[in-house]
């Protein structure tokens, strides 16, 4: 009887395995160093170009001539090697991979820490650094230590304003920033049924903030229906009775809107305790909360009103943006006074498009509130989409519960 990670990697927890990589991807940030290592390796050609992707998202479009030059090198490389390539505007690497490329049961490696997002499909998806990626380009395989697993048992369903991000922040707060180091998280239990694919992606995305190697949901009908939308057939995966290193129980019905206080992702407090903190910027987007469901939820709250603080929205992908543009969500966001960026990571890592200034406070739907990350001397509070929307409307940190009163 095995955990899903053990089943996919074909070995027991604790053992080291060499395993074929089914999908490998890098972005414009890590791709630069991966290409440097690749050139130094003199490997010749990519082992499996059809399963290798390069996706521009971190500084897309380029913000200066240095970034533009580095991106041009990567573009040329992608063309020469005939690998799958997503240029600026395509979206965040994890979201591009989530739109019909990543499949249940696959081993997926990305040169980005949030590759764990794709565990939402029942894949073993984990992040590596640039040189590991170069070696995977060359060999089509890499080594893994099969992780022990922490089971996160979910019961009930969300009430009121609570959403997937609140669950994610809650488990990060419960486990701590290193509570799952070297381990995998498996999200199980009857509570899973009520969670959409977009929600599962949000939940898995933050598993790395506990140190976890990945976070996984078992593929089920929700997964299959989602992938059918991209013309892909997927089989369900059944959990087996197995040995978990640790178990965590969370009742979705007890999850409330929460906020992570800087500079720690695990310093999680109820939103209502932080009400009234003045904000300079609200940011909706990223691989955590830039998907269609997130944009639509935000739009539903701000529709017909005006935001009181500058509000930046970065859709996670082109298809997210097209969908939002097609059904009025985008118009609602723009009408409320939001600034909409091209699909990509936006200001999450403080590189461009919404860097905050000294002493400024940003409420962000992203996943990291590390010191100076979005700009030197600025502070980042992390919240759900609903909390961000309610706070954008009031200009100060606001518990969104009032917007969901029955």
């Amino acid at each position, binding site marked *: 009887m095995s955990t899903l990670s053990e089943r996919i990697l074909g070995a027991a927890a604790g053992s080291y395995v060499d395993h074929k990589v089914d999908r490998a991807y890098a972005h414009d940030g*890590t791709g630069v160093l991966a290409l440097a290592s690749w050139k130094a390796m003199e490997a010749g050609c990519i082992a499996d170009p059809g399963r290798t992707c390069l996706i521009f998202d971190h500084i897309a479009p380029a913000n200066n001539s240095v970034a533009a030059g*580095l991106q041009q090198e990567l573009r040329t490389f992608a063309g020469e090697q005939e690998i799958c390539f997503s240029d600026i505007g395509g979206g965040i690497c994890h979201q591009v991979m989530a739109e019909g490329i990543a499949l249940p049961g696959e081993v997926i490696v990305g040169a980005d820490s949030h590759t764990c997002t794709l565990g939402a499909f029942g894949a073993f998806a984990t992040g590596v650094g640039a*040189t590991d990626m170069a070696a995977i380009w060359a060999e089509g395989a890499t080594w893994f230590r099969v992780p022990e697993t922490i089971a996160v048992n979910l019961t009930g369903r969300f009430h009121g304003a609570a959403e997937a991000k609140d669950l994610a922040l809650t488990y990060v707060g419960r486990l701590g920033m290193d509570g799952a180091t070297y381990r995998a998280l498996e999200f199980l239990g009857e509570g899973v049924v009520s969670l959409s694919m977009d929600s599962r992606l949000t939940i898995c995305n933050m598993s790395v903030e506990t*140190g976890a190697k990945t976070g996984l949901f078992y593929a089920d009908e929700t997964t299959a229906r989602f992938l059918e939308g991209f013309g892909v057939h997927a089989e369900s995966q059944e959990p087996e009775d197995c040995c978990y290193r640790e178990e965590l129980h969370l009742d979705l019905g007890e999850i409330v809107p929460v906020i992570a206080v800087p500079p*720690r992702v695990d310093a999680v407090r109820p939103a209502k305790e932080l009400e009234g903190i003045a904000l300079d910027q609200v940011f909706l987007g990223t691989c955590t909360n830039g998907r269609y469901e997130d944009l639509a939820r935000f739009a539903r709250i701000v529709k017909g009103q005006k935001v009181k603080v500058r509000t930046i929205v970065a859709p996670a992908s082109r298809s997210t943006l097209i969908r939002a543009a097609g059904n009025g969500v985008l118009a609602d966001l723009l009408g409320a006074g939001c600034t909409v960026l091209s699909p990509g990571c936006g200001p999450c890592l403080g590189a461009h498009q919404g860097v905050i200034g000294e002493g400024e406070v940003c409420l962000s739907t992203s996943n990291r509130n590390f*010191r*100076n990350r979005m700009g030197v001397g600025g502070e980042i509070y992390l919240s759900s989409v609903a909390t961000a929307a309610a706070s954008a409307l009031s200009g100060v940190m606001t518990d969104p519960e009032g917007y969901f009163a029955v």
Partner: protein
Amino acid sequence: MRFEGPALCLGPDIDTDLIIAGRYLRTKDRSLWAAHAFEDLDPALAGELRGKVIVAGKNFGCGSSREQAVIALKEAGVRGVVAPSFARIFFRNAINIGLPVAECEFACREGEQIEADLRTGILAAGGRSYRMNPLSPRMLEILAAGGLVEWWRGRR
């Protein structure tokens, strides 16, 4: 496979944004990363790293997968990093770039001489010795080669 040097003590949960900030990533000049290492933690630290062994608290290198964090420390002359635990991507990156890393827990005293041998798994500090968590044979091979690029080239 040994590394040694005076200890430079750091706290727990040092993230890769603190090791090298995102605003310095887009360059090919590796010396720039060394010059700005730990800038947001303590701007004076970068100048003190050469020849040192970093002895950090738990979860060193958490956060982003940026390999520049390891390269910054290596280029700055850090001999090795010891911590009770590491974020796994940083740990893999360190092996791949050829910066010795070891999991070991002991009370760090600033400047105290650290001597570590990754093959025997023994670390000596201030006249006491401690056992480090063993590295896998593959990790030892990669470190011995000087990094993953060199290991890969040597295998061909």
